[in-house]
């Protein structure tokens, strides 16, 4: 008398399997639960164990053969008296946990959660396989005590688009109790608006906190007479717009000057990596751009190899793509220094947070006409000049005040000299 080894029911809609490899051959002695054969189906590899101890008397399906579920693929002759004569039970899918007669089937976690929450499992609809009650079902039932327990869709059959995190167990949905805990002691007042952070906002927040915690930021500011740049720009802006289709802004001038100064002060074009300061040979400048969905910092690669017009084109391309959400992960890679241009409108100056793992970031202030003192022919005079503040934040772990100020004042010098070829 022999026991059949059948291709077991592996799962819903799995109707057949392919014999990948026999781990035993005819005549081999096998122990119960010893792996006999490897069977593959789409995305699943199953090792089928022996249902009984005994001798493999016959192998009925060859390697490479695809057989339907339920097919006998081998026979085992049980040995001696230990054999359960005549039993031919499926091998890998033996006892399905029987539905108990005295109550609904539930996972241990669900039972535990139900007792914690005082939920009667009898009233909970199970969303698990075969109607088993899952912990999430108990949570839904506990959250909606009055309503009849609705089954939580845990394994939807059709393709689903998950555009929002599910309510239960979510860390993003707002609930008052959680907010109280987080706001530690703050009691929400009538009219307060609580806006949970979007996932993207949280990721940005991670970076800000990480940078501030990692790098001791020091700020230094220069006041720059942009008269020369304004003149160059006024001279070229009409023709430039005609030739290129976009406006020549101040940003490429700043990038151009910063890149040249970075070559003279490589301490600012660096990263702190463990216990070393790595000064980078390449200069890739990140340009912080505000977009609808938040701040992104696409990178102008090899900015030191570009002319002013080349920089203008690169900046225009990146900011247009950022606005149209066409920025790729590659565009964001590898920046070695960052320039932030937060726009005009009353922005005198401010210190940006360093974009890790870089060690410096330059932030542009508003360009405004201002009375300044100029000396001409031994006489001091108050004149009206277009002025801009540039604020440098640097990582004091890697950079000291002398090179930081040296860099910033070199940027100023280059901008005030205004020797640009267009």
């Amino acid at each position, binding site marked *: 008398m022999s026991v059949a080894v059948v291709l077991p*029911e*592996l*799962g*819903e*809609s799995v109707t057949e399997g*392919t014999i*990948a*490899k026999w781990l035993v051959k005819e005549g081999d002695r096998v122990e119960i639960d010893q792996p006999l054969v*490897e069977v*593959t*189906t*789409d*995305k*699943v*590899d*199953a*090792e089928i*164990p022996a249902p009984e101890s005994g001798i493999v008397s016959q192998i009925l399906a060859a390697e490479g053969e695809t057989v339907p579920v339920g097919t006998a693929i081998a026979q085992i002759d049980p040995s001696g008296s230990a054999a359960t004569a005549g039993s031919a039970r499926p091998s*890998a*899918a033996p*006892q399905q*946990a029987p539905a108990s007669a005295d109550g609904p089937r539930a*996972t*241990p*976690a669900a039972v*535990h*959660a139900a007792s*914690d929450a005082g939920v009667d499992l009898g009233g909970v609809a199970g969303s*698990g*396989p*075969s109607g*088993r009650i899952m*912990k*999430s079902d108990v949570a839904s039932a506990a959250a909606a005590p009055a309503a009849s327990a609705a089954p939580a869709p*845990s*394994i*939807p059959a*059709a*393709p*689903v*688009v*998950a555009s929002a995190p*599910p309510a*239960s167990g*979510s*860390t*993003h949905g707002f609930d008052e109790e959680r907010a109280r805990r987080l706001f530690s002691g703050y009691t929400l007042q009538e009219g307060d608006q609580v806006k949970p952070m*979007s*996932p*993207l906002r*949280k*990721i940005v927040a*991670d*970076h800000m906190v990480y940078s501030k915690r990692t790098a001791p930021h020091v700020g230094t500011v220069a006041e720059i007479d942009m008269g020369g740049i304004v003149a160059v720009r006024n001279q070229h802006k009409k023709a430039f717009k005609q030739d290129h289709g976009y406006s020549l802004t101040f940003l490429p001038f700043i990038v151009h000057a910063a890149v040249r100064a970075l070559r003279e002060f490589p301490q600012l074009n660096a990263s702190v990596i463990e216990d070393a300061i790595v000064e980078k040979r390449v200069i890739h400048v990140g340009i912080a751009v505000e977009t609808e969905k938040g701040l*992104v910092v696409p990178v102008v690669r090899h900015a030191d190899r570009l002319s002013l017009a080349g920089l203008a084109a690169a900046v225009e391309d990146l900011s247009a793509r950022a606005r149209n959400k066409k*920025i*790729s*992960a590659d565009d*964001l*890679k590898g920046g070695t220094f960052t320039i932030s241009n937060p726009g005009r409108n009353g922005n005198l100056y401010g210190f940006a947070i360093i974009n890790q793992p870089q060690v410096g970031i330059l932030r542009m202030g508003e360009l405004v006409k201002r009375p300044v003192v100029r000396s001409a022919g031994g006489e001091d005079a108050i004149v009206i000049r277009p002025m801009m503040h540039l604020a440098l934040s640097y990582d004091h772990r890697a950079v000291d005040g002398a090179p930081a100020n040296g860099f910033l004042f070199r940027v100023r010098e280059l901008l005030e000299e205004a020797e640009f070829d267009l």
Partner: protein
Amino acid sequence: MSSLLQIDWLGTVRYGEALDQQKSLVEDRKAGRSGDRLLLLEHPPVVTLGRSTRPENIRTPLDELQARGIDVHEVARGGDVTYHGRGQLVGYLVADLEARGAADVTAWLRGIEAGLIEALAGLGVASRRIEGMTGVYVDDPESDVPRKIASIGVGLRGWVSYHGFALNATMDLAEFADIVPCGLQGVEMTSVAKELGLASDALLFDRCRSAVEAAFASRFG
């Protein structure tokens, strides 16, 4: 509260080492010495060849890959060729499906997909499954072809499952160029970083990791 799923972060583990560890956990699980486990880790670059790998799905000769420091493993599993590398969050689930009340590997695959879809939603990435193509996909607004963000494959020893999923968190997608992942011609890979338009850095990888931990703890814990 007791948990049905112990989740561990193992850091960077070579493929062969992680496979041995899974095999021993499968034995522990079968013998009742351990509960269900989720191992989260990253692999150094490795190409793994399943039993049904077709040669045309490997675009770069294997010896050239090895010369570039990429491990090559032939694995006793179904399916075609896959690639794992830095920035990919690999999750190996060793779980007794029968003890979970669902001796059904299809439901298990759908459950893993659902866990990943939930984790991605928590990161702000809308994703979905596709009938007949195990894995998790993201619709491309400019194309009819969705991009694949996570691959799934499991092994069964009796009713104890192992292997699991690989979520492209912050990985360099260009590294897939050497192969046709899972033999799916024409399906492009994507990553969380790419979908969010964010830099591929360690902070984002950590976010992906905690989103996956939260989703799997709530679904399977």
